[in-house]
């Protein structure tokens, strides 16, 4: 009966083995759905870039609220809707902290995806951190083209590039009737990469598009006195001015233009005047200034009204809503759609899916290029009597562009 006893033993041990293995792998077979989809963003809430940082944060937060009000994002892998948990950390406008805190979001909080912060200066750091951590990154307010030439795979930027801005600028000028059209271009080049890229595009395209650059001046972010530059523009007879000044400079240049009695027909300052507080700072002197129009509260795209309503419920006194709000809202829309399309929270699969997303957002249609930049519709806003209205492109404009009269006739 020995063989019988030992075969019983074998069967018993095999059974124990099978049971143990089943118990061990069972939990993974019924993969538990995570309680939330964790997303992370490091944004400048203090320091030099804080003004735009809060707009970026507000856009994300409103988007998360809308998504979670509907129950969350449907993730096929778990067959249910999961709400989003967005962790936002301050980077104090410090590049070192951007990378450290993004690393925390990855290694400690294990976020599924990163969302960008504010300004090229800090976003460039965020983009390379995303690339090294192999976490997809979607962000706005990056205007410099340099990162897109580096073969990064994990970055997605549904926002305008310097080339978009310059091309649209010339399109806009072309639309002005010939008798009134300014053709003498005054260019003020800010010594940052974005400023130089714009400058290069302008110099390439001006002649072909029928415009002459009559003054081409350089200045740097710390510059506070523009008297020399303005006098040059004035004496060269430039009737349209293009630049990308910092927000303080966008105020000071205009004040000094008034003092030196220089009033070109078109003043296009892409950054600065789009801030909602520009009118409070400048008063009537802000009239006619044209600036960035990546997004506007009046845009007829689906979902936009709701964004504006919720924003104004939170900030009732704001005269015009800053562009990052709509743009960061759209970024979150794209991400949510990508998660839904991918059906999973796996970072690699998510990355591949974001690249294929083609959708309509609150700022219009978006489609990504291979290098992570996007095909978007770019436009301009103009200050008219206390309101920052969209004047270009014509499909979404709510007011006609106005040419500036001389200072004494205003």
């Amino acid at each position, binding site marked *: 009966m020995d063989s019988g006893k030992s075969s019983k033993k074998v069967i018993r041990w095999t059974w124990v083995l099978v049971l143990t293995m089943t118990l061990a792998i069972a939990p993974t077979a019924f993969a538990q759905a995570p309680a939330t989809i964790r997303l992370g963003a490091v944004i400048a*809430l203090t320091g030099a870039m804080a003004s735009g940082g809060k707009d970026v944060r507000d856009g994300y937060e409103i988007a998360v609220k809308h998504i979670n009000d509907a129950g969350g994002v449907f993730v096929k892998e778990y067959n249910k809707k999961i709400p989003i948990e967005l962790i936002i950390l*301050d980077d*104090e406008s*410090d590049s070192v902290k951007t990378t*450290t805190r993004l*690393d925390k979001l990855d290694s400690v909080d294990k976020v599924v995806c990163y969302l960008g912060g504010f300004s090229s200066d800090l976003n460039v*750091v965020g983009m390379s951190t995303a*690339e090294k951590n192999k976490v997809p990154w979607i962000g706005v307010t990056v205007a410099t083209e340099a990162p897109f030439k580096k073969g990064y795979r994990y970055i997605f930027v549904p926002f305008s590039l310097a080339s978009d801005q310059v091309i649209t600028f010339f399109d806009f000028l072309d639309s002005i009737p010939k008798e009134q059209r300014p053709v003498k271009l005054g260019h003020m080049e800010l010594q940052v990469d974005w400023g*130089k890229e714009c400058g290069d595009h302008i110099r390439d395209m001006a002649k072909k598009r029928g415009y002459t650059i009559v003054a081409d001046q350089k200045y*740097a972010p710390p510059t506070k006195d523009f008297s020399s530059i303005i006098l040059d523009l004035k004496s060269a007879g430039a009737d349209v001015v293009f630049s990308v000044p910092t927000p303080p400079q966008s105020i000071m240049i205009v004040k000094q233009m008034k003092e030196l009695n220089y009033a070109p027909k078109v003043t296009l300052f892409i950054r600065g005047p789009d801030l909602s507080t520009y009118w409070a700072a400048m008063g009537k002197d802000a009239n006619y200034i044209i600036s960035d129009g990546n997004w506007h509260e009046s845009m007829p795209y689906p979902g936009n009204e709701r964004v504006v309503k919720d924003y104004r419920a939170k900030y009732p006194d704001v005269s015009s809503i800053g562009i990052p709000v709509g743009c960061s809202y759209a970024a979150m829309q794209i991400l949510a759609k990508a998660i839904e399309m991918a059906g999973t929270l796996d970072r690699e699969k998510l990355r591949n899916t974001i690249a294929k997303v083609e959708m309509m957002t609150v700022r219009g249609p978006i489609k990504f290029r291979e290098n992570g930049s996007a095909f978007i519709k770019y436009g301009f806003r103009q200050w008219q009597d206390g309101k920052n209205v969209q004047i270009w492109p014509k499909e979404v404009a709510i007011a006609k562009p106005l040419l500036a009269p001389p200072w004494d006739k205003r």
Partner: protein
Amino acid sequence: MRQLLLFLALVICLALMPLVITKVYVLNLIILICLYTILSHSWNILGGYTGQISLGHSTFFGIGALIFRYLWTLGIPPYLALCGASISSLLLASVIGFPAFKLKGHYFAIGTLALSMIGSITVQNIFPGVSFPPPQFLSKYDLVPIYYMALTVAVITIGLVSFLNRSKLGLAFVCIRDEEDAAESIGINTFKYKVISMTLSALIAGLGGGLFSFYVASYYYYVPFELGWSFDPVLIASIGGAGTVAGPVLGSIVFVILKELFAISLGQMNVLIFGIVFIFTVLFLPKGLIGILEMIQGVKTLRMPLRRGHDPS
């Protein structure tokens, strides 16, 4: 001797960390602490020991970062590039040192401040764009070599400063700090020693700059030249305890950890609360954080002896 053993034990623990810790974030924080230790000790040599309050260290830091990045992108291995970086800071310091030391006291401080402002504006104009790492670096990224470089440089720095703490060179520095005229009169060539101090200080700052460049993969060229890098080491070394070996280390630990804690939990108020905590620390610990160490251990040997004209501890 006991301190040396304790220190070695700590270093070994830190060196073994990457094998044990899975959360990369902890390594990150240690790298940051090392970075600030290096930078504040570099200031400490010139400011804490030699008494020349410099506000221009961001220039040495920045040049270190610039040259490191340049050599590294050329294909030179990181540790060699680091040497190159610190040598360039050293060269810059010897050029600046000669005219700079005609100035004394507050004039020297503001003169060096002006130099760092010149550096920062000039670099912004010449290099207005982004400094990218060598290609392939990001796809094969690994924090561990950066961690070990941080540890190595920090240990070298602390070693150098503790050597200074008990050497004749260090004694000369302290004499210049406490009573410069008396030092001259007993035959110490104060000018020569000030220049040595500045070059040592710049050497360390250059190493710090190289470490920064190795750690932060992409950044705008002007960032390591920003004035914050001049002010932070002064604050950290001072609040930790200037003129000591442990002071800047304690200061860096508190600075980094506290700021992280606040940033994670306090949102927009984090820097404000930090400022308030900072002021309270100064009011209640006027000798610096090192005062806590002294209270606990009753140890007074951490501080350089013979500080006439100052409160004898």
